[in-house]
């Protein structure tokens, strides 16, 4: 009876704040979580690391009641729990701090914190009571927030504190933070970590979702690694290393066994000098990139997603302007003074297969024959420059579909109706058919089935053998290793080094991806 009572009061001490057992969750044909189990000890900071799409966010959404699992169970403080909605999870003390804040911009901090938990005393009284309670919370955890400021006028770091206060105010004892540092400056990140440590010392359990290795190493007690919807590792942070984690994160099963023959390298097709990009938040997302890309080679860019690869592609394809430095294609120089111009880049023979085919590669509501001429619609073969000729374009599309084995071979099908692999082949066919001198490829096989991967790889190798200079950005180390002639590794916007394929090993690249410079990474090998 006693035990029963204390259980209800939440005093019952299970060693684990949260236990997750055999959770499965599918969205249509995509299984986002496969048989996931996870134990989180109370009063610790538990990191969950994995690449984009590894299933971290889905798992956390299940834990805070946003999604319901297809199967499996969750225990909170040793008690079985069923969450139909986030408020159920909150009642058991599980609070979520979202990556995109759930704050009303033109409300004060206080109003945002209280929203939905105003109490039964009327708004005025409710706000006053909340203010008292919040002053205590603020002091206890160093969560300094001006309660009467308008939220939209506050920096993101403070807005995040409002989110944390919101969860604590509602009695959260387990706090899930989804990519909390993605929007923060380094100083704000430091302050956040101090707050997290203060919370931990007061017995709050923290689940930290991130794909940044150094954060995991800096602050967590335990870490779990997710990859492709599965939980692949669970260790104490002190028993692991950034290199190990990097390998566990990206180390996919070998999909491609083909080792392609090396080939002699041609002239420099693209030279990049001290290139830098400062993003909207004032971050250096690309720093001092310097390298040459030669005709007839594939230069692979390895790195964990979000380490400056996207910015590099975006600058080289003429979408964004560099903030510093320049790059040269033949005698054409592009620097911070020159307006970016993707069309000009195309005319210079630069093709770009964007990382995200849905948002940048295709218009999903377009039919295949429309998608397949995007950016090349002025081509004289396809019309007279003003009118396009649908028959010609459809025939052209059929031709490409046959050449690139796009299935189903129907130019009139909507782009959205093709599978991921076939969509990617559509984009590739479009970009390659212009016979580029330089091909920029981002994540060519993300979400693509094995058959298509092999086709895409063979196509890229074929292009290289015909003298095209290829810059290949991929988060899949296997892919980089199997296709590239040289491998450039990026970390936090910086180039850690360029390794010829022959001397590259997975372990060494993993270290470089974790931020260890090439010299040290080499030494460790010996």
């Amino acid at each position: 009876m006693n035990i029963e009572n204390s259980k209800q009061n939440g005093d019952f001490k299970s060693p684990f704040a949260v236990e997750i057992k055999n959770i499965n969750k599918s969205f249509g044909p995509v299984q986002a979580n496969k048989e996931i189990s996870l134990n989180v000890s109370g009063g610790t900071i538990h990191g969950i690391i994995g690449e984009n799409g590894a299933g971290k966010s889905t798992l956390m959404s299940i834990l805070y009641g946003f999604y319901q699992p297809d199967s499996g169970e969750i225990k909170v403080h040793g008690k079985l729990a069923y969450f139909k909605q986030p408020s159920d999870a909150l009642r058991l003390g599980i609070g979520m701090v979202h990556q995109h804040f759930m704050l009303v911009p033109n409300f004060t901090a206080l109003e945002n914190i209280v929203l939905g938990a105003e109490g039964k005393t009327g708004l005025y009284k409710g706000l006053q009571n909340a203010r008292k309670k919040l002053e205590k919370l603020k002091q206890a955890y160093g969560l300094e927030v001006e309660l009467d400021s308008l939220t939209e006028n506050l920096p993101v770091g403070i807005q995040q504190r409002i989110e944390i206060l919101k969860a604590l105010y509602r009695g959260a004892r387990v706090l899930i933070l989804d990519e909390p540092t993605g929007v923060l400056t380094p100083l704000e990140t430091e302050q956040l970590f101090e707050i997290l440590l203060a919370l931990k010392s007061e017995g709050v359990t923290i689940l930290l979702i991130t794909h940044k290795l150094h954060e995991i190493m800096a602050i967590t007690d335990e870490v779990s690694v997710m990859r492709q919807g599965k939980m692949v590792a669970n260790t104490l942070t002190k028993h692991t290393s950034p290199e190990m984690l990097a390998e566990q994160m990206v180390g996919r099963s070998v999909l491609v066994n083909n080792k392609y023959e090396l080939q002699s390298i041609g002239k420099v097709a693209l030279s990049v000098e001290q290139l830098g990009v400062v993003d909207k938040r004032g971050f250096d997302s690309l720093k001092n990139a310097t390298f040459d890309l030669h005709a007839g080679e594939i230069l692979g860019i390895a790195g964990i997603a979000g380490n400056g690869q996207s910015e590099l592609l975006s600058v080289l394809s003429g979408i964004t302007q560099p903030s510093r430095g320049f790059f040269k294609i033949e005698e054409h120089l592009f620097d911070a003074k020159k307006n970016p111009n993707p069309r000009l880049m195309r005319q210079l023979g630069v093709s770009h297969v964007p990382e995200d085919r849905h948002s940048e590669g295709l218009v999903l509501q377009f039919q295949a024959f429309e998608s397949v001429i995007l950016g090349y619609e002025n081509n004289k073969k396809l019309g007279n420059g003003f009118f396009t000729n649908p028959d010609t374009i459809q025939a052209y599309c059929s031709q490409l579909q046959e050449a690139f084995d796009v299935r189903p071979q129907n130019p009139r099908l909507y782009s959205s109706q093709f599978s991921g692999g076939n969509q990617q082949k559509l984009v590739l066919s479009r970009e390659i058919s212009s016979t580029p001198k330089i091909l920029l490829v981002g994540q060519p096989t993300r979400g693509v089935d094995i058959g298509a991967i092999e086709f895409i790889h063979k196509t890229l190798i074929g292009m290289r053998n015909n003298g095209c200079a290829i810059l290949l950005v991929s988060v899949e180390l296997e892919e980089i290793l199997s296709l590239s002639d040289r491998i450039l590794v990026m970390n936090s916007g910086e180039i850690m080094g360029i390794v010829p394929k022959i001397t590259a090993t997975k372990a060494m690249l993993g270290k470089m991806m974790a931020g260890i410079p090439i010299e040290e990474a080499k030494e460790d090998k010996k």
Partner: protein
Amino acid sequence: MTDFWFQFVLTLDSTLRVATPLIFCAMAGIFSERSGIIDISLEGKMLMAAFVAAAVAYGTGSPWIGAVAAVLVSIIASLIHGFACIIHRGNQVISGLAINILASGLTVIIGIALFRQGGLTPTLTKTSRFNSIELPFIEFFELHTPIFGVIYKHLISGHNILVWAAIVSVAITYYILFKTTFGLRLRAVGEKPEAIDSAGISVTKMRFQAIIIAGILCGLAGVYLSTATGAGFVKEMTAGKGYIALAAMIFGKWRPVPALFACLLFGFLEAVATRIQGIEFILIGEISSDLLIALPYLLTVILLAGFIGGVTPPRAIGQPYIKER
């Protein structure tokens, strides 16, 4: 001078009467749009309510029963709007437009079927309408305070209950919106529905509550038109007042008190327009009454074209709420 003063007070008096349905509708609009639902169906709801109020008041002889029936019908129209654009995430403007078209057609057709008077309802007798309320002490004030006496007699006294209700509705709207928990949530749901959802409150429920209140207020506007200021329903009797109220609401930046003043401004223009008809001005001569009648509409267009400056509508307005994947 005394004549001008007298005329001015009378103009203000009719300002108030012209503005009453605008005020109701503007408050309705504030509730609906603050919750994130665009409501161009103010017009249609008001028209339906006007017809039902007149028809029921004629049938039962009681303006009160007419008013209740009218408000109910207006709420039903709101619910249809909600069904289309909250539950089924339809386009809010199209749904509102549909209600307006439905209203202008249905009122006439049902009117012809019931009364066979070409879409009119029979003229209501005095007992089946909301009549003016003469306040006491008129003689007293006239005798002792001549200036205030005029104001008291012609501006303050002599209004029907709905005029007062409209003004009270502004105070109530303000109070609900800014001083209650419900108001806090209402404003949040129109700005950032995700915040409301993650706080464990149903976005759908909040929005339905908001549009039901909008339905009640539009209903009262309709009641006012056909059974208080008018004595029966006339085809298309709302004549765009719903849209003008919408403009006044935007002009008032979705806030109750500024919206009230915007309504009064529109009302004043219309009152002036009717009052100076037929009067010869020096140099200008008689001002075309068509132009004067068009004035409020012209002003609406100018205001809506963005001459107000710094207007930020509720951020989530017009967007159906879809839980992200």
